[in-house]
Every structure is written in structure tokens, then in C-alpha cells.
């Protein structure tokens, strides 16, 4: 009857539940992959020729797809997180959550189940997006170690963003607002170095773009996948991820442990 083994067992049970939901609606995962894929195609085929010429090195479409990939990957992370917020909010509006609360199960298990489930979903969705990118001409000279590092970086920021989405899902009173609240996250790659270099932006925006959390992540990924300068981006990425994850976790836990809203 150790409480740690119960926590692990309950979290695994909740994870199985979330994975079942995912398997039952594979279309959800495909839908989540849909947005980044559409943006990828849009930015490669519609804007890629022009933007590729403008990013400095004078390349075209082929070079732009390499440049835009980190932004697309982060957009994927944000899209899955939006799904997380929705499914957490849906859970909270269902009676089943009240049942869980009146059972002797580890309190964090339900949230842990969502977070781990979403991490798995993120990896599946990223696989789809990267597969499409390879089909439309994305090439990387990254070594297997660099790929592993890139996956680690994405997992780190995804973990943070997913905890944030869990909190946003909990704070939302309706499923609709849960789907709207994380929306800015999907736009964040645009307001950073995801689609164009930040030095082409006006001062105020550039300042935001350079200091917002997604930019160092994209710079780190870009460095790992295409060999550009990483500098202290990796450290900033780790710091941002840890900070967002910790604060979001504490917020989510506080929201979850309060008395459920009175109907």
C-alpha cells in the first residue's frame, strides 16, 4: 500500500484512459496535425519563393523550408496543447471527474494522465508533420545525436506548454473558452524568429520577438537541425521550459484542488 506505487498505478490508469480516447478518435490527432501542415504548405509553396529570397542568404523555396521548420514544429506543439486544454475542460464538465474526486485515488493522477497522454500525442503529431515536411523537400544534415537533442528540446517545451494548457483548461468555465485561451500560443512562432528573422521587424515587436520564450527554442532547433549558431539559446530554452512548467504545474494543481464550481 505504498502511496508512491498507488500514484504511479493511478497515473498509468488515467494515461490508458486518455490514450483510449485518442485511439477512439484518431481524427483528432490528424486534425491537430492539420493546422501546422497547412501552414507548412502555405509558407513553402505560396510565400516560400519570396520569403526565401528575403531571409538573407539569398536562397529560394528550398532554403526557406529549412528556415521555417522550427516555427512549424513549435506550432505543432501549441496545436496539440490546445487539444489538451479542450480535453481537460471537457473532463471537468463531465460527471466522471466528480466520481474520481470522491474515490480514494491519487489526486494528481488525472492531470498526470493528461500531460503524459498529450506528450505522446505531440510526438505522434510531430511525426506526421515531419513526414509531410520531408515529402515537400525538407532536408536536414543533422546527425542522429542532433536529432535526439532536437526531440529532447521539443519534449521539454511541449511539457511546459502542456502543463500551461492543463491549467488553462481547468480555469476555463466552458469548453469553448478552453479552446480559445491557448490560441495565442499557436501564433507565438509568428511573433518570433519562426517565419522571418527578427531583425526585419519594427523595434517594439522586435524586442518582444527576441525575448519571448519560443524564439530561443526555435533558434536551438534551427541550430541542431541546420547547423546555425545556437549560442545561449539552449540555456534560455531550458530556463523558459522549466519556469513555465513549474508555474503552470503549481497553478494547475491549485485550480484542481479547489472545490469544484457550484452548479
Amino acid at each position, binding site marked *: 500500500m505504498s502511496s508512491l506505487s498507488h500514484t504511479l498505478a493511478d497515473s498509468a490508469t488515467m494515461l*490508458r484512459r486518455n490514450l483510449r480516447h485518442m485511439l477512439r478518435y484518431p481524427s483528432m490527432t490528424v486534425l491537430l496535425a492539420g493546422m501546422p501542415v497547412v501552414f507548412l504548405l502555405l509558407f513553402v509553396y505560396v510565400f516560400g519563393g519570396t520569403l526565401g529570397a528575403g531571409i538573407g542568404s539569398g536562397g529560394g523555396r528550398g532554403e526557406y523550408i529549412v528556415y521555417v521548420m522550427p516555427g512549424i514544429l513549435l506550432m505543432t506543439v501549441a496545436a496539440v496543447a490546445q487539444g489538451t486544454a479542450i480535453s481537460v475542460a471537457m473532463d471537468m464538465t463531465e*460527471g466522471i471527474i466528480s*466520481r474520481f474526486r470522491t474515490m480514494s485515488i491519487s489526486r494528481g493522477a488525472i492531470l498526470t494522465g493528461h500531460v503524459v497522454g498529450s506528450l505522446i500525442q505531440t510526438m505522434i503529431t510531430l511525426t506526421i508533420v515531419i513526414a509531410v515536411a520531408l515529402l515537400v523537400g525538407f532536408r536536414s544534415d543533422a546527425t542522429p545525436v542532433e536529432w535526439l537533442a532536437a526531440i529532447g528540446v521539443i519534449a521539454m517545451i511541449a511539457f511546459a506548454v502542456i502543463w500551461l494548457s492543463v491549467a488553462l483548461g481547468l480555469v476555463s468555465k466552458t469548453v469553448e473558452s478552453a479552446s480559445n485561451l491557448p490560441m495565442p500560443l499557436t501564433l507565438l512562432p509568428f511573433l518570433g524568429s519562426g517565419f522571418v528573422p527578427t531583425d526585419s521587424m519594427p523595434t517594439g515587436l522586435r524586442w518582444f520577438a527576441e525575448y519571448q520564450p519560443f524564439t530561443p527554442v526555435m533558434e536551438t532547433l534551427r541550430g541542431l537541425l541546420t547547423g546555425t549558431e545556437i549560442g545561449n539559446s539552449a540555456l534560455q530554452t531550458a530556463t523558459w521550459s522549466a519556469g513555465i512548467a513549474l508555474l503552470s504545474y503549481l497553478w494547475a494543481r491549485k485550480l484542481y484542488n479547489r472545490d469544484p464550481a*457550484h452548479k
Partner: protein
Amino acid sequence: MAGLNSASAISAVGLRKSYGEKLVLDGVDLEVVEGSVFALLGPNGAGKTTAVQILSTLIGADGGRVRVAGHDLAREPDAVRSVIGVTGQFSAVDGLLSGRENLRLMADLRHLGRAAGRARTAELLERFDLADAADVLVSTYSGGMRRRLDLAMTLVGDPRLIFLDEPTTGLDPRSRRTMWEIIRGLVADQGVTIFLTTQYLEEADQLADRIAVLDHGKLVAEGTAQELKRLVPGGHVQLRFADPAAFRAAVGALSHTLEDIPRDEDALTVQVPSDGRVRSLRALLDLLDAQSVEAEELSVHTPDLDDVFLALTGRPRTPANTDTDTATEKAVTR
């Protein structure tokens, strides 16, 4: 039942809860005997669901001392959780899973182990007549099926104390009867304690050993269905006579003891106030016999819970029944 085993399943003193300005529970005392069925009866908004939510550890109380199954509710919520089962007003099932998967989920969370969990699941599916729909998504279930699955999920961990918050609200009459049978079976076969809320007077009458009437956050009466019914004046015996002569003779005979008997000369009926007990019926018939008056037909009208409820909660249907304070006093003095 109360006399054999008087251990308390629930013992609450001065339970209070408010949401902002709104006082939802205003000093409620409850005593539920182990192995009994206790019904909390009240109209919408009386505070029934809040009471269940507090007693089942879902939300905290603002005041009062509560022990559930021997554990202090505020200090040992997990100990309470391990012995209770809750079936709420809104079905607590996972619509994206099948019935079997829902039950397995409960078995896993109760740490039953694989084989035991599988066996328990199969047994409950069979018992609740869900075996045919076991592998279908619950979102396609009918209301009655969802409610049965909901209760089956509650039973997975063999709880000693089961909370049922309006277990039959929204069900069709047949499903309601099925649910009643299931509830009766639980008490008879397994000796569990049941705490149920309902706004259906008939339901409390059918199922409960004791009934507490909750109104605006306060208990206004408590007792058995019979005790509650006796609290309300208005019970009477109606006598119908074969001809006007017998009718007049009866009125004459009864006038010795009663002034101004309600009567209907066209229908040849009189209404004699009565508590409906055999002793008073016999006395009435003896009185008529002594005058050689024979009644054609006799019917006893005891107030039903409807009358009790309306009288006690101060929404009078009959103006005579508003003496709530006296009623409460009599009811609570057991």
C-alpha cells in the same frame, strides 16, 4: 432494523455551507444508521445535492462536525473515500469508453488486480443487464442504461455506504422501477447503507427506512414515512351510505361526538377526521353499530407524502396544514 445495529454510517452535527451570500445548508443534523436506507427529501434548490457533495468529500463544509463510516470527514477524507460510492445526479460515466472499459477503469482505480477486475466487470455487466451492450461506446447508451452503468461503476469497489443523488430523476417509469429493485437488492443482499436524495415523495416512501425533509437548507422533519404522514392533520375516513335515512341516522349518531361534520348530502357521504389507525376505525364502526346504522362503503384517506411535504415546506395546498413548528417538534422527538 434500527434497533438491531445502531452503529452510525453518517453522523453530522450542525452542517453548514454557503455560496457567497447564499446560505445553502443552515445547521443540518443527520444520523444515518448502518444498513439502512435514508432519504433526504426536498424540492429543487433545498440543498440536497450540496449535502451529498459534502458528505461524499467532493466539497468542503463551512461548519459542522461530520463522521462518515467512523472517519472524520475533514481530517480523513481519503479514509472516507475508500468506503463510499457515489452516483451523482449527472451521470458520471466516460462516454468515450465502452461500458466494459468504464468498469475496468473503476476496477483499476480500486486496485483490484487484473483477474479480479475482469471478473467483477463481467459480473456487474450481467447483473445490470448490460452484457449485450458491454463493448459499445457509452455515448450511445439510453438514459436508463447510463444510470445502471453509473451505479454499477459505483459498486465496483464494494462500498459500504452508497450515496445516490436523485437516482431516478429523468428516468421513465419502467427504468425507475428497475432502479428501485436494484437499490432494494443492494440493501437486502449486501447490507450496505444507502443515503439517497429525491424530490419524488413516492420514491422516499418506497425505499427509505427514514426520511428527512430538507427545505431552504434546514431539516423541517425527520422520521419514518408513517411518522411523517401522521404529522399532518387532514387524514379522514369517508363513509358512504345506501340511502338518505341511513345517512341522516349516521350524521345524527356522529353529531354526539363531532360538531359540523363535513358531509355531502347528494353523494350520501360523511367525512370523519381520523388518523387511519385500526383502533380509531373500530371505535367509529362500533359507534355506528350501536345506532344500527350500516355504512355501504368505507375508505381511509391518510395524507400522502405530498401532503406532508407541502405542509412542512410551507407551500400550503391546504391552508390548515401550515403548523410547521409543531410538526417539526413532534417529528424530531423520536
